[in-house]
Every structure is written in structure tokens, then in C-alpha cells.
């Protein structure tokens, strides 16, 4: 937990508490922010520096089965980007999919202290937790894939909505997940069961099931809201990456009907099609998307910005990865998980001269620059899909420095800029406070993490101190100090300690009767025994349950809507 600490003379950005650059002390003791510490407490003189809560990545891919496949398939990207061991810390390798130790240390060296792995198969939960064990510094959680789950489909198909909710709660709890995740609902069944087909609209029939993505999405939004999860259903919409997908995205958001829903990496879902042709090059429809979000407070999103350079497409959306494989050279990985999910991986490179890549870059910036509520349109690159998390400082500079942005716009494919509205939002520059919102306070609020993303008394003592610099990329690349749970992890830009972060997860109540429904399905269609499926506490040496606030009773289930 480290010794008591007083940070003095720094300009504090704590938007959740209305602090906007005021010079004030921040005190830390026993891993928490406190009102005061004894006068002999260690002091950090933060004169000329900016003090913020630790960064929070609401959507990234850093651990678990697909991440490890993506690591393994790219040895050539590791060899030239290495993480040396020190007396205290472990070695590792980088590239767009770093090893676990490198992931933790590198996030920390950017001032991030919390990250959410955004797509884990339930069967892969144990694997993900094993990797988390070896991912230092960060507090972590993961979103569990439920949107292509065949048992849940069966319940939904039969109209057993209450049981669906209990089963969802069961799955969240036994996998130690943080939130439910939908990825391209219905797509996996088309992919695996229908000769590599895909979903093209919310009203497509899902393979042999009497279901549509529309029904699936609506049901999960409802169930998630009823369970009162700290973070609502996290949705990767259908048609990711396709020209004209904006209509699907808008339609998906409308399905929430005023209930909470989070749309993931929305940049990838904001494409128009020239003259209504779906096969044409995409155009930007960022305006329509952001206008909807600006006017619908129930909806939140992370941007999924793109940065030029190497990336790894790594997604539960297997048909998408298959489509992209012809752009990625020779390598393509596909991995199907029984009854639960699919997955695709393709090494990728965004190039500023390529029309589509430049358009994607522009849309990411557009969405952020047109956003009226930074609390609901937060920062991400869908690491490593839109680019590595190591590109965050450059993206922050693009938001904060219009001169730099203009200069960069001159280098990219101009036709793409013609089809975007980026030139119309040239004036806006993000303030430090707004950056603090989209990279920490906003994600914390959207995740329902009340002890994070702010520096009020009682908050987790996750603090980042940056040296002020005109060059915002430089400033955000290497904080002078990073404090995690009250411990000084980075001092004078260097790793000074190792630290094991926490697992953040939920444990919603469910009617135990639901196990009688789930177990027979396991007997028939899984290859792992029902008794061996739940992840036990040994995998969570340092866990924290974030409470839920259900709007309906968890148990006992009524006979309800069973048909």
C-alpha cells in the first residue's frame, strides 16, 4: 500500500469533483485518497505538473485465449520491441499484442491504472484470469461474450425471458465477469453453422434458430438493465466495418428504448455508403451517430479511434476477420468456441494514403470533436484493433492541438477527408479537463466504478502526474509519477516497484433453479463437465465485487413466461 503521501503544488484535474486545474494538495494513505496526512508524510512536489486520476481503458483486448493466439501468431513483431527485465520487474515483448508483463508495465508508463478486457468467451474466463495474474499494476475486469450463446438463444427462442435473465446472471457470476458483451449477435451461428455466412441486418434469421439479432439485442438490454449491472450490456453491433452500417448502428441504439446500453468502438459502425450502394467505399456518417448520442442520455459509447501504423484485428466477430484477411498478408486465425462464440485475428496496418484507413482515422476524430457530452463518448482505440494503446498520446495530441491536427490532415488521403466532416470541426481543441473525462472520469462513471476516475476522499489512490508540456503527445507519453493503490509505481518516469492489481467483477444473484436448466445442456453439448465450468476463487487472489442494483427480484423464479 505504500507510505502516506502528499502531492503538493500540482494543478489538479478532477472533473468528477469539479476541480479544473486548481493547485491543491492530494493526500494518499492506505491505498485511498484521504483528506490529510501527517506532516512528516513523503511529499511529491508537482510544481509545473498536472495531477489526474489514473487512466481507465474501458475497452481493450489484453488477456485471454484470442489475445494469446494473436501474440503467438506475430513473433516478428516482438523481436524488435522488447521490455528488458530489471532487478524487480519481469521482461517481456511488445508489438501490438505485448506479453502480459509488458502490457501491465506499459499501460502504467502511460499513466493508466485500470483496463477492461472487452471480449472473453465464458470457457476462456479461467485463461483470462490466469493472464491477469501475470499482468502487473493494472486493476482489470473483463466482459463476457453472451450474444451468440446457444443455450441463451434457446431460452429466448422459447420466450423464457426470466430464465434468460437468471442464466445471464449465472454466467456473469460463475465466470467472474464484469459485464455482458454482445458481439455481432447471430453472426457466429451463421459463420460456424451456415458455411461462413454472416448477419447483414437486424432482421436476418439466425441460422436454424427462430431468432433475429433484433430480438437478441433487445432481450439482453432488458435483462442487463433488470440485473442492475454497474455497466450495461456492452454491444459490438452487427455489420462492423461495412459500408452503410450506420443504419444498423442507429437501429441498435433505438432498440434500447431509453434503457442503458453501451456501444463499443462506434467509429467502426459509423459508415455510410455512397448513393446507397453497400459495396462502395464507405463515407462518414459520424454526424448522425453523434447527434443520436448527444440527444439520448441512455446511450454511451467508446470511440474506437484509429491511428496509422501497425494494429491487430482481434475480434469475436469472426466473419469480419475473415473478410479482412486479404488485407493482412498471409496470416489469418479463426477460433470457434463451442456454444459460445467465434473469433478472428488478422495482423493489420492502417496506412494514411489508403482511402478507407484515412476515413476511419477521420471518423474517430470527428466523433470526439462533435461530441457534446464527453462523459458518454469516451476514449478507446479498441486496442489493438484501431491501433495499440501506445498510440493514445498521439491521439490525445490530435484532440488537443488543432495546429498539429491540421498538419496531420495534410498527409492523409484527401478524398477520404472530402467524405468526412473533419474539416468542419477544425476549431475545437480538447481541454485537459475534457481529456481527464474521456480517459478516466467518464469511463469510471460508465463502468459504475465509484471509487475510480476521481480524486475525492475515499477514492482509490490511483494517481498520475504529468509534466506539463506544449507537446501533448510527449506529455501523455511518460508521466513523471504513477501511483497505484497508494504505491509509487513510477517515479521520475521509471518503474520503481511491481504491483499486483485487483480483479473487478460482479456477482449478481440468480435463482439456483436455473442450474437445472443449464446442466442438461452441458451434458449434451459441452465437452467440459458442468461441475468443472465455474471459475473458483483461486483464480482471483485479489478480487473486488462491484455491487449490482437489480430492479427485479433474483429469486425465486416464477413459472413466468415459460412456454
Amino acid at each position, binding site marked *: 500500500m505504500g507510505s502516506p503521501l502528499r502531492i503538493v503544488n500540482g494543478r489538479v484535474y478532477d472533473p468528477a469533483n469539479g476541480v479544473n486545474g486548481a493547485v491543491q494538495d492530494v493526500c494518499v494513505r492506505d491505498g485511498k485518497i484521504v483528506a490529510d496526512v501527517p506532516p512528516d508524510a513523503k511529499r511529491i512536489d508537482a510544481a509545473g505538473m498536472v495531477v489526474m486520476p489514473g487512466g481507465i481503458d474501458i475497452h481493450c483486448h489484453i488477456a485471454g485465449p484470442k489475445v494469446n493466439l494473436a501474440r503467438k501468431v506475430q513473433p516478428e513483431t516482438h523481436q524488435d520491441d522488447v521490455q528488458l527485465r530489471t*532487478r*524487480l520487474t519481469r521482461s517481456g515483448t511488445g508489438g501490438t499484442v505485448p506479453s502480459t508483463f509488458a502490457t501491465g508495465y506499459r499501460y502504467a508508463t502511460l499513466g493508466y491504472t485500470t483496463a477492461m478486457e472487452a471480449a472473453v468467451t465464458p470457457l476462456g474466463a*479461467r485463461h483470462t484470469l490466469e493472464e491477469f495474474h501475470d499482468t502487473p499494476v493494472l486493476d482489470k475486469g473483463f466482459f463476457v461474450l453472451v450474444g451468440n450463446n446457444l443455450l441463451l438463444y434457446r431460452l429466448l427462442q422459447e420466450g423464457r425471458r426470466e430464465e434468460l435473465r437468471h442464466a445471464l446472471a449465472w454466467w456473469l457470476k460463475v465466470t467472474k465477469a464484469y459485464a455482458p458483451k454482445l458481439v455481432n449477435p447471430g453472426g457466429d451461428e451463421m459463420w*460456424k453453422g451456415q458455411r461462413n455466412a454472416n448477419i447483414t441486418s437486424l432482421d436476418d434469421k439466425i441460422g436454424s434458430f427462430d431468432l433475429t439479432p433484433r430480438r437478441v439485442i433487445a432481450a439482453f438490454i432488458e435483462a442487463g438493465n433488470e440485473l442492475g449491472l454497474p455497466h450495461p450490456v456492452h454491444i459490438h453491433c452487427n455489420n462492423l466495418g461495412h459500408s452503410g452500417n450506420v443504419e444498423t448502428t442507429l437501429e441498435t441504439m433505438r432498440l434500447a428504448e431509453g434503457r442503458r446500453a453501451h456501444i463499443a468502438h462506434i467509429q467502426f459502425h459509423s459508415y455510410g455508403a455512397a448513393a446507397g450502394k453497400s459495396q462502395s467505399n464507405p463515407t462518414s456518417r459520424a454526424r448522425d451517430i453523434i447527434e443520436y448520442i448527444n440527444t439520448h442520455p441512455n446511450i454511451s459509447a467508446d470511440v474506437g479511434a484509429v491511428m496509422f501504423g501497425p494494429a491487430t484485428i482481434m475480434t469475436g466477430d469472426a466473419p469480419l476477420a475473415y473478410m479482412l484477411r486479404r488485407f493482412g498478408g498471409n496470416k*489469418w486465425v479463426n477460433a*470457434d468456441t463451442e456454444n459460445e462464440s467465434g473469433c478472428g485475428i488478422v495482423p493489420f496496418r492502417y496506412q494514411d494514403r489508403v482511402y478507407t484507413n484515412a476515413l476511419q482515422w477521420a471518423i474517430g476524430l470527428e466523433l470526439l470533436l462533435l461530441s457534446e457530452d464527453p462523459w458518454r463518448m469516451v476514449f478507446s482505440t479498441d486496442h489493438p484493433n484501431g491501433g495499440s494503446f501506445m498510440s493514445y498520446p498521439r491521439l490525445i495530441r490530435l484532440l488537443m492541438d488543432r495546429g498539429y491536427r491540421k498538419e496531420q490532415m495534410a498527409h492523409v488521403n484527401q478524398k477520404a477527408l472530402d467524405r468526412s466532416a473533419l474539416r468542419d470541426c477544425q476549431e475545437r481543441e480538447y481541454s485537459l479537463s475534457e481529456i481527464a473525462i474521456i480517459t478516466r472520469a467518464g469511463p469510471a462513471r460508465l463502468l459504475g466504478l465509484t471509487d475510480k476516475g476521481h480524486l475525492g476522499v475515499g477514492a482509490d489512490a490511483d494517481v498520475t502526474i504529468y509534466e506539463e508540456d506544449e507537446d501533448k503527445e510527449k506529455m501523455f507519453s511518460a508521466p513523471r509519477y504513477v501511483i497505484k493503490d497508494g504505491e509509487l509505481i513510477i517515479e521520475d518516469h521509471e518503474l520503481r516497484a511491481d504491483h499486483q492489481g485487483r480483479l473487478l467483477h460482479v456477482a449478481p444473484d440468480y435463482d439456483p433453479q436455473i442450474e437445472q436448466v443449464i446442466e442438461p445442456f452441458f451434458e449434451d453439448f459441452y*465437452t467440459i463437465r458442468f*461441475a468443472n465450468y465455474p471459475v473458483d476463487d483461486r483464480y482471483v487472489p485479489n478480487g473486488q465485487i462491484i455491487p449490482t442494483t437489480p430492479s427485479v427480484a433474483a429469486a425465486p423464479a416464477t413459472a413466468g413466461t415459460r412456454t
Partner: protein
Amino acid sequence: MGENLKVVRDATCTFCGCVCDDMHLTVDLDQKRIMKAENACILGKAWFREHGIEERPLALIGGRTATTEEAVEAAAQILAQARFPLIYGLSDTTCEAQRVAVAIADMIGGTVDTTTSVCHGPSGIAFEGVGESTASLGEIKNRADLVVFWGGNPAEAHPRLFSRYAVTPKGMFIPNGRKDRTVVLVDVRRTPSTPAADIFIQVKPRSDFEVLWALRALVKGRKVDPSIERRTGVSLAVLEDLVARMKSCRFGVFLFGMGLTMNRGRHFNSGALLALATDLNEFTHWVAKPVRGHGNVTGADNVVSWQTGFPFGVNFSRGYPRFNPGEFTSVDLLTRREADAALIIASDPADNFPKAAIEHLRRIPVITLDPKATPTTQLAQVAFTTATYGINVSGTVYRMDDVPITLRPAFESPYPSDEQVLTAIRDRVRALLGGNRLPAGAPVAAAS
């Protein structure tokens, strides 16, 4: 049979990569023996029955009985002093132990390699070149209507691959089980697996690559000369028939074995098969799976990968992980007489490595962790007796399809686990070195 019996339900067999987790074990707690292993195959039955507690010393140093503590000290001294130590094995132990083994390699600046390098290591290299379309075993059970075994003998090495996962079981979209599937077996000889197949294709030894390459060409609609039969022993008609079946099935799977990896062509054989599966996805859904031998060799691949970025053959001598099969793999390090010490965990290279490699093992200080005496423990300077994973030790193992499973041990062992011994060694080495050994050099200048 003693009075003190207990039944452990849903225990896991770690004999092979199938890692079946439906064992119901009847355990005699007085005798410390497993009397019955319901659902186990012939290999699993032997695995459970033969792993009683043997009367063996906790440790041997230079052949003399020692305490575990003394042996930890001796092992730590060897590892702290070595300049090019090799840590090898790890496929028959838990991920928890594997994790510590990699940590030791990192700390001392050694090399960590696993039995993968002499198993599906070539498939790992192939994966790095072309990727892979793969699936968990349940997808095969639920969906696969065309199952192709290539270069393996599951009837003898993985019996329940047939009965639990890939041939006879009924699945969601395979309601009639065996009847709904076509099974093809490709091998150089008839084996006890052959009768399980609808179609047996016998290829001439060392011609798998040519057969696979011809299939790729046919799948892509290219012409293949009938002379293919002279080289491979397989007629063009047979290949064309197979291609037609592969393109028209709904969900096809290749399950391939060491007939490809241990053979001339090695990683290119595996790569050709993985590429063929990729090509076939233009037409219908296809996956490919290397069939893995040891109970947790897949866990070793995963742990080494997430900790270092590379699956096996990883060297830390410069202070960061480097991967290069042929340079940092065990057979090479030993055959070239480079390793100056070896820590061997749950493996028996002295039984199956090439002669020249075994000879080098006799020259250098070797530390072993094994529940049983083996040719390798016999040549060791320091030999620990450890408890058997899955039977006495809990922890995590990964099935051949990367699905992690937690073990349910049957009874306690008087011997420590691999993880406990390795942790003690790690802590002692750390004390001797004053923390991790500092990197010996800067990264090698980028090669381009």
C-alpha cells in the same frame, strides 16, 4: 480394499491432451490408491491405477538421499552459477508450476523450452507463418460432419478423441453421432485407428507434403498431373474425391499428429495442412487442430506465450525473451553442447532425445522434478520426487483445444508439488542473485 473409500466425481485425466474431465474415481485413502476410474480409457486407467505413492526419497543429490531443503539449495546453486542453463519439460505439470519455471528462466537469464519443441513445435512454427482456423473440441462434437485424421493414431494415443469428441458422440447438429459423419484417415501404415475410418488413404512415407500441396491446388481449381500417384502412392481420383467431399461438407476438421511434424518437411507439412484448411474456408467451414500428446503441453504453450510472446524455445540471456527454434530449443542446445546446466520438470529427455543430446545431459549438472524414477532422474545431480498433478495436486491444465480445466486431486501425497519446489528454488536463486540478474546486454541491433 481398505474401508476408507471416497469417490471423486468429475476428476480430470491428464495422461494425454484430451484432458477428459469426466472421471469418477474411487479412491482408497488408506492405501493411497485409485481403485477404479470410471469413464477412463485404457491409458487413463493405467494412469490412475499406477500412480500410487512409491517409497522414494524426497530428493537425491549425487545419488544420495537428501531433504527437499538441501536439494533446493543445491539446485539453486547450480542455476545461479550457470551461464547458459536450460529449463525443459513442463508438459506434465500444472500451469501454476509452469509459470514459476518461466520466472526462473527470466530471473537467471536462461532458456525455457517445453516438450512442444519435439511434439507440435513445427506446427507452432507453421502457425506463425500462416495462422490457423481452429475450434474447441465441442464444436467438432456438435458440428463436424467430415473428420480427417492425418498422421496420427488416436485409437492408441488418444482413444477418447474418437468416443468423446470427434467420431461417435452425438452433437447439436450431429444428432445421429457416427452416422452423421464421414471419417477419413490418412497415414503411411494401417494402425488400430484405421478401422474407425470410412476412407483410409495410405500415403507413401515422406510424401505428406506433396499430397497436401496437390489437395491445395485442386481446391483452388488448379490442375494436378496424374503422376502424383507415383510420388505419393495416392491416385488423382482419390484426391479429387476427397476434395469434393471437403468442399461440400458443412463443417470439416483436420486432426493432425506427429506423422506430419516429426517427418521430413516438419513445419512445412503442418503449414500445408493449416493452409489447406484456410483455403477450404472459401467454400465451407473448416478447422484444423494439432492433436497434443501430454496432459498440459497446451498449457505450457499458453503460459510461455503470455509471459514472453513466444510459445517455446525462449531464451532470456540478454534480459528479454528471444525465440528461435533450432537455436534455443532443447535438442539443439544439448546436441551442440551449449547448455551448461539443465532443470528438467516432468519430462524424460534421456528416454527419447537423440543420442548426442542425451550424451550432453550426462556431462552437465541436471536437476529433475518427477514423481517417478526415469532414465533422466537417474543421470541427475539433483533429483526431486514430486507429487503427481491431477492425482495429488490441484491446479490448471489446458486441453489440446486451449480450454483450461481445474484439477480435482484424488488424495494427498507426502511429496511436494512441482510448483512448491520450483517456488522454493526461485526464491533461493533470487536471494543468491539479489533479485533478477541484470540484463547482460542491450537488445541486439534490430535486424533491419
